């Protein structure tokens, strides 16, 4: 018979290995976690009641609802990704957009230069908060989406 300590070591190693394997598979299969400093939420109902949230009143059926990813930071607003992989990002934020938007963040800086196929629409409110639509699609669809986004409330 194996010594008792060896048995427990085996069980501990098995549990650790299984946990590690689950984490790696999850990272590979499920979309990346929220960028550093941002919180990833499970659903819109998990947002705080006074959060700044992009709230589109009109949405193309191809994009789907609810959002697949929700990034939130109390002081910096909320970003919603529609589609998997994301085909649109809706943002209500202030300050810099999350770096995890990658090349798409360039759409929102001065002298916009979006990646090919992406459209960006953004505006700054008097309060300093900004709203934006980043859409993989044509410009007309981005205009419609942005019009709907501006019509909606920005604070829940």
């Amino acid at each position: 018979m194996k010594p008792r300590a060896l048995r427990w070591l085996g069980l501990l190693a098995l549990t650790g290995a299984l946990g590690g394997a689950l984490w790696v598979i999850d990272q590979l299969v499920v979309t990346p976690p929220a960028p550093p400093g941002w919180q990833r939420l499970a659903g819109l109902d998990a947002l705080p009641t006074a959060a700044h949230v992009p709230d589109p009143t009109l949405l193309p059926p191809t994009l789907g609802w609810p959002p697949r990813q929700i990034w939130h930071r109390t002081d910096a607003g909320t970003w919603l990704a529609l589609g998997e992989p994301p085909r649109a990002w809706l943002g209500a934020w202030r300050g810099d957009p999350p770096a995890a938007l990658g090349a798409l963040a360039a759409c929102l800086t001065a002298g916009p230069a979006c990646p090919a196929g992406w459209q960006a629409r953004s505006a700054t409110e008097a309060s300093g908060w900004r709203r934006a639509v980043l859409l993989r699609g044509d410009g007309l669809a981005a205009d419609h989406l942005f019009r709907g986004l501006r019509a909606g409330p920005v604070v829940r």
Partner: protein
Amino acid sequence: MRIEPPRRAAPTRRGYDPRVLVSTNIAHGLLAFFWAQAARRVLQPRCPALAVSLVTLVLWVPPAVSLLQALQPAPWRLLRLEGWAAALASMGPVSWALVALAVGTGLVFVAQELVPLLMRDRAWQRAPRDAHPRLDAARAAVVPGFQALGVDRPPPVRCAHTRAPVAALVGLRAPEIVVSAGLLDALDDRQLEALLAHELAHAARGGNARLTLLWILRALQALNPAALIAFRQVVEAEEAACDALAARATGRPADLASVLLAVERLDGADRLAADASGQANARHSLLRRRVRLLLDGVAGADLGRGGHLAAAGLLALLLWGVA
């Protein structure tokens, strides 16, 4: 391009949505089942008491972790179930296959466990019972072996006046061992002692109260395929664990093996041999495994109560991060 208002799902509080509860329970059950099977291989593959201890965790740890998550979500995530649900939902046929699996598991529970339990023939349990000198002598012979193993209150033994070849531990609060007159006549004294030792082992391992509790936990997870398989494994391994304990208490495993074969013969071996159904095959296979384990001997030891709780803690730690 057609523009329409967003379709929004009614807001539900995470953890109280029945779909989330069921899918989380199934994910936890499957992971726990995989962990328990791997742990059996890592520890002692030939110790049935250890198998019972590990597989029992599959039945009670997942509901306990769901409660824990409702009170205190884990600060880390090993599996993000909402992401997996979204990925599966995007694969239409796969998500429907999973729904069909859950519904099918529920139907199997009703057809194979709930209905047979309600319709089980208990006529032999209603037959008049009384003491019998051969049973008293056999009990007196085996009880000291159990007392040496720490069993201080062995249940009484009664003879039921029926020809059906049955022996069982009956009752929850004041259990007693019942042996039918038909079986009493068919076994010699050594076999009778081995039979009583097996039933006393059931009492020593928690008896019907423990199995009833496990059945309730299994019924609460009726849609979970892992709970379905785990409960059957527990019931089968429990018999083998009682065989091993009885063999340890009497020191005569071959006698108990001969009892198992004798009961099978009395129960209509010819009829069973002619029955090629899956259920009959499973019964023969279980009998072969039990006899073989008795004759080959058991290796290793159970985890013990503290070890069971420690293993539960490890498994709970793993499942806590799956939400």
